[in-house]
C-alpha cells in the first residue's frame, strides 16, 4: 500500500461561532491526483491552509509526508508547491522577476525547466504583474508552484481565470508531474474538472466530508441540464420515459430536463422531431448538490 502523503484525522477548525471544517478525515497517497470538491464556502481553503500550517486547527491533526503540519511546517513547505485560491503578487515586478524571486526563496530553480513552463503556459515574463489579466496572473501562480518540481502540489482552484487551451496545458503538466511521482491535491468546485483530472475525490459540503472515493463516484452526480426547442407541439411523454431523464418541464415549445448519464437517447428522440435548438450545459456544483442532496445541503454549504 502506498504511503500517505496527506493524512488528516478529525480535523476541525471553528472561527468563533462560525463553522470552518468539522472532523475532516482525508488520506492522499503518493503519486495520485486527489480532487477536493465542494461548493464555495464548504471548507476547502480552510483545510488546505491547515495542511500548510498557515492556520492552526481547533482540534484534530494533519500530517503531510508524515510530518505533523504544526510541528515542522518548514520541512513540509520545502517539498510543496502551492497555489492559493485567491492571491495577488507584486504589482511593480514583472512576471519574470516574480518567478525569479520565488525561485530564489526555494534556493534556486532549474532555469531550463522554468523557461519551459513559461513557454508552455504562454506567459510574457517581461510584463509587470499589474498589467496581467486574471488568467495571466493565475499562470504566474501556477509556474511559481511548479518551477521547483515539488513532491506535492496543493492547488486551490488552480484553473480559475485560465482559458480552455491553457487549462488543457495545465492538466497535461499535472499528468506529467504525476508520472514523475508528484502527488497533487486539487481543490475545485467544478465537477467536470475534477472528473477528468483526478484519480480519487473527496466531496466536502458544510465543512464535512460528504463522500470519498474513486472518481467514478462522481458519475452519479454528473448530469446535464438540457433544453430542447421544437418548431411544433412538444412530445413530452416521449422524453419522460427515456433513461436518465428527470425533472422534465414543458413550456410551450420548449422542453427542459435533467439528464443523468449518457445523453444519446435524448439526442435520438429529439432528432425524430422538428428541432429548432438544442442547449446542453453542465450545471454548477451548487445546482448538482441541490439536485443530489436537496436545498438544505446547498444552503448549509454557503453559510
Amino acid at each position, binding site marked *: 500500500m502506498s*504511503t*500517505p*502523503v496527506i493524512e488528516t484525522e478529525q480535523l476541525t477548525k471553528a472561527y468563533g461561532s462560525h463553522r470552518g471544517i468539522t472532523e475532516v478525515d482525508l488520506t492522499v497517497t*503518493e503519486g495520485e491526483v486527489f480532487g477536493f470538491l465542494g461548493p464555495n464556502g464548504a471548507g476547502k481553503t480552510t483545510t488546505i*491552509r491547515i495542511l*500548510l500550517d*498557515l492556520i492552526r486547527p481547533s482540534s484534530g491533526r494533519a*500530517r503531510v*509526508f*508524515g*510530518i*505533523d503540519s504544526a510541528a515542522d*511546517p*518548514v520541512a513540509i*513547505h*520545502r*517539498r*510543496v508547491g*502551492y497555489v*492559493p485560491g*485567491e*492571491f*495577488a*503578487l*507584486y504589482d511593480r*515586478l514583472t512576471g519574470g*522577476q516574480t518567478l*525569479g*524571486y*520565488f*525561485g*530564489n*526563496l*526555494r*534556493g*534556486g*530553480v*532549474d*532555469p531550463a*525547466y522554468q523557461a519551459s513552463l513559461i513557454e508552455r503556459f504562454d506567459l510574457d515574463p517581461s510584463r509587470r504583474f499589474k498589467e496581467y489579466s486574471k488568467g495571466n496572473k493565475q499562470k504566474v*501562480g501556477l509556474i*511559481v508552484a511548479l518551477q521547483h*518540481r515539488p*513532491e506535492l502540489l496543493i492547488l486551490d482552484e488552480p484553473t480559475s481565470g485560465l482559458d480552455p487551451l491553457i487549462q488543457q496545458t495545465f492538466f497535461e503538466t499535472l499528468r506529467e508531474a504525476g508520472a514523475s*511521482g508528484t502527488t497533487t491535491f486539487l481543490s475545485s468546485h467544478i465537477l467536470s474538472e475534477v472528473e477528468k483530472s483526478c484519480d480519487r475525490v473527496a466531496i466536502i459540503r458544510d465543512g464535512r466530508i460528504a463522500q470519498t472515493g474513486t472518481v467514478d463516484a462522481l458519475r452519479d452526480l454528473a448530469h446535464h441540464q438540457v433544453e430542447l426547442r421544437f418548431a411544433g407541439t412538444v412530445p413530452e411523454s416521449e422524453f419522460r420515459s427515456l433513461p436518465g431523464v428527470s425533472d422534465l418541464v414543458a413550456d410551450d415549445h420548449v422542453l427542459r430536463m435533467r439528464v443523468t448519464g449518457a445523453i444519446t437517447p435524448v439526442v435520438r428522440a429529439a432528432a425524430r422531431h422538428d428541432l429548432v435548438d438544442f442547449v446542453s450545459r453542465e450545471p454548477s456544483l451548487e445546482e448538482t448538490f441541490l439536485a443530489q442532496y436537496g436545498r438544505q445541503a446547498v444552503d448549509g454549504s454557503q453559510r
Partner: protein
Amino acid sequence: MTVQAGTPRPAAALSTIPLRRRLYGFGSIYGKTIRDSRLAFIIAAGLFGGLSLVMGAAIGTVFPNPEARVEIDKLIGSMPASMVNLFGNATLMGPKLGTLGGYMTWKYGALFALGTGLWSILALSGTLAGEAARGSLDMVAAAPFGKRRIALEKLAAHLTMLWLAMAIVAVTIVVSSNAYGTAALGDPVPLAGSWRSPLPRCSAAPARPPSRGSPWSPCGRQAAWTSAVRWSMSARSTGRSTTSRSSASTTGPASLPWGSAPSCSLPSASSCSAAATSG
C-alpha cells in the same frame, strides 16, 4: 513514530543566487525588502540630509558670531516655555545648545525622531500586513522559511535602510557644520562623533578647553544655555507671565559674564551654570 512518505528528491541543477542579489534584489526576503525600501530611503535621507544642509547654512548665516548667537537666547527667551520644550528638552541640551549642531538638534531633533519613527511604523506595519492586504502573504509564507524568519528578515532590512539613512544624515550634518559653522564657536562636528548616532550625537560636539576671554567659550555657552533652559523651565514650572519671562531673559543668559565662566565639563552643566551666574 511518524513515517515520512518517500524521501525528499535530490536537488536538480539549480541556478546559484549571487550574494549581491541576496543583499539587494530578488535573492532573499531581506534583499527584496531592501529593494522595496529604495524610495522611502531616498526620501528620508534626502529630506533629513537636505534639511541638515539647509538649516546649517541658515544658522551659520543668521548667527555667524557670538553677538548674533546671544540673539538665540533672546529668541528662546521670548518664546513661551511650552513652545521651547515643544522643540526638544533644552535642559538636556546643556551648553551645546549654542553650537550649530546643538541648536539644530534642539530645534529639529524631535522632528527627525518623529520622521524616522513614522517611517519605521509605516514600513514595519506595511511589511507583513502589506503582504496580507495585497494577498501575497500565503505564497511567501508557503516558502521554506518559518514565519519568524520572514518577519526578522523584513525587520533587518528596514533597520539596515534606517541605519544607512541616518549615516547619510550624519555625513550631511558633519559637512553642514564644517561648511557653514564657525570653528571658534565650537560648531564643527567631527565625523567620528556623529557616526555613532547622528541625531543624538550631533548635539554633543566635543567640549573644547575653555578659552578665557572669549565670550562664546564652550563653558560660557554651556552656562548661558543652561541658564536659558533653567529660566525656561522655572518659568514653565512656576507659571510666570510672559512679561516676567521677558524681563528674566534680559537679565538672564544674555547678560551673563561669559568670559569669566569657569572651566567645567559637560556633565556638570548645572553647577557650571551656577558658577557662571555667581561669578
